[in-house]
């Protein structure tokens, strides 16, 4: 329908989440009409983010170096790990100012329907971290079907290894969050309360 480069751009844009064919076309023509500087700045920003930003080798949060700023920070309590689904879930918890531990980003949640099994998440890496002297793991996965199952699975795995690493307390965020809501959309006050009122999992 369009010349090669344009249909390639439309094709790439339509792979983005929430972007359908029509929106991709609109964006492509917007880029085509834009100043050369603006369009190239976009291309450069994409290239830079892919080159410079990777995953932290410890917690799998986004990071510009081998380790993220939180893992580098000497003042953070390394005996306390907060487990979240996505890098975006770290931000609202940081914003509460209530949390002084470190994180572990799973990279998703268990969802057999989408073919996501425990091996597809950074669960083995979490268990290894816990083995090296951690006193509490806060499970802050979303209160959704998949988030609850993920929390349950990790809690059970930690229990199974309890013999190896002694007593680690496993807690879940208090249920101040509305059922089915994403962490990403929770406000600071609610989330702060949920953190303060976290409870031990059996």
């Amino acid at each position, binding site marked *: 329908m369009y010349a090669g480069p344009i249909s390639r751009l439309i094709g790439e844009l339509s792979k983005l989440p929430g972007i359908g064919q029509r929106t991709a076309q609109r964006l492509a023509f917007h880029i085509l009409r834009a100043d050369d500087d603006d369009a190239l700045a976009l291309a450069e920003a994409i290239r830079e983010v892919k080159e410079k930003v990777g995953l932290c080798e410890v917690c799998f949060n986004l990071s510009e170096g081998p380790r993220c700023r939180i893992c580098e920070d000497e003042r953070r309590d390394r005996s306390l790990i907060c487990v979240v689904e996505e890098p975006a879930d770290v931000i609202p918890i940081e914003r509460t100012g209530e949390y002084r531990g470190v994180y572990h980003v799973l990279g998703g949640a*268990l*969802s*057999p*329907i989408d*073919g996501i*099994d*425990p*091996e597809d998440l950074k669960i083995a890496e979490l268990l290894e971290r816990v083995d090296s002297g951690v006193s509490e793991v806060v499970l802050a996965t979303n209160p959704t*079907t*998949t988030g*609850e*199952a993920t929390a*349950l*699975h990790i809690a*059970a795995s930690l229990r199974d290894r309890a013999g190896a690493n002694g007593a680690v307390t496993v807690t879940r965020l208090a249920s101040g969050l509305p*059922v*089915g809501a994403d962490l990403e959309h929770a406000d600071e006050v609610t989330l702060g309360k949920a953190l303060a009122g976290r409870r031990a999992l059996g």
Partner: protein
Amino acid sequence: MHLAAVESRGFRNLADARVAVGAGITLLHGPNGAGKTNLLEAVYFGLVGRSFRAGNDRDLIAYEQPAARVELELAPQGAVLLAATDRRGERRHLLDGRPLGSSESRPLVSVFHPDRMELVKGPPAKRRAHFDRLVGALWPARADLRTRYGRTLAQRNALVGRIAAALASPASLATWDDRLAAEAVPLIESRAEVVEALSAPVTELGAALGLEGMEIRYRPRVPPERERIGSGLAERREHDLGRAYTSFGPQLDEVELRFGGRALKRFGSQGQHRIALLALLLAERRALIAAGRPSPLMLLDDVMSELDPARREMLVAALADAGQVMLTATEREQVPAAAGAEVSAVAIRDGRPLGAAGLGAADRDAA
């Protein structure tokens, strides 16, 4: 919140018109085929966004019209609910021009119609879905129990299927079993509570309408205990892996309607099924009122034809205590004036509600 008026355009055989709806009982009367049931259907379509009849949306659109469209005016806030469907199959359902959110923003509705007889004599899935919705109507905070359980069940089924096909390890199956058990507990408890709330009124109203010994019964295959459900799932694990589905849990439960100690769906006559459905809907209405919830809008199609005069009077008296009712009858006399019942009657002939405001061509163009 109640329905103040219904306005339809291009809907089945109905003339484009606006019909005011009274606060109590509204009787739609006229000969067979006049359009009484179509007007009830228009109200339901406006509230729910689809029909209560079997068949597809296109059947709702009048001959040679591009679209069927219903507007409901809600009192006292004056909000307008609009439902429309056109020949390309495009649907709209809007409240004051915005897509509908929670069910809280519109009245509950309860329908008696031959196509609803499935609730009495159809497969158990229809009754489960119905009573799970009633749970949400009685206790809005529990409205998502069915969805939550359904989502978790779908995940467990997907996992069982993938394990059976050697695409996934069974490592997380125990996790999903436990989650499923956890979601099953409040669902089973709520169904039991709903059936408990309906039990006495179903028997009483059934008898009053002529069906002696009617009962509603829920016997879950497993008590609402997380450990028991979990171990039940574990016991059937091999079986489930062989068939790639989940063979245990409340998704297979039956809520039974019975009379004279037997299952109504197998042993009842057509007339007994009709009375059972009416008794059930009235019992639900009573349970909602008792729980402090608003009485649902009752849409009752031709309920009088099989009742004797004494029972007709009893029914009108029972319906007059709260909320709105729209019912159809071929003869006006089929709905007797009962003590305290305020009945406003609307005659319908050839799709035209008599005395209703017609909608001019200009209105139709504006639509």
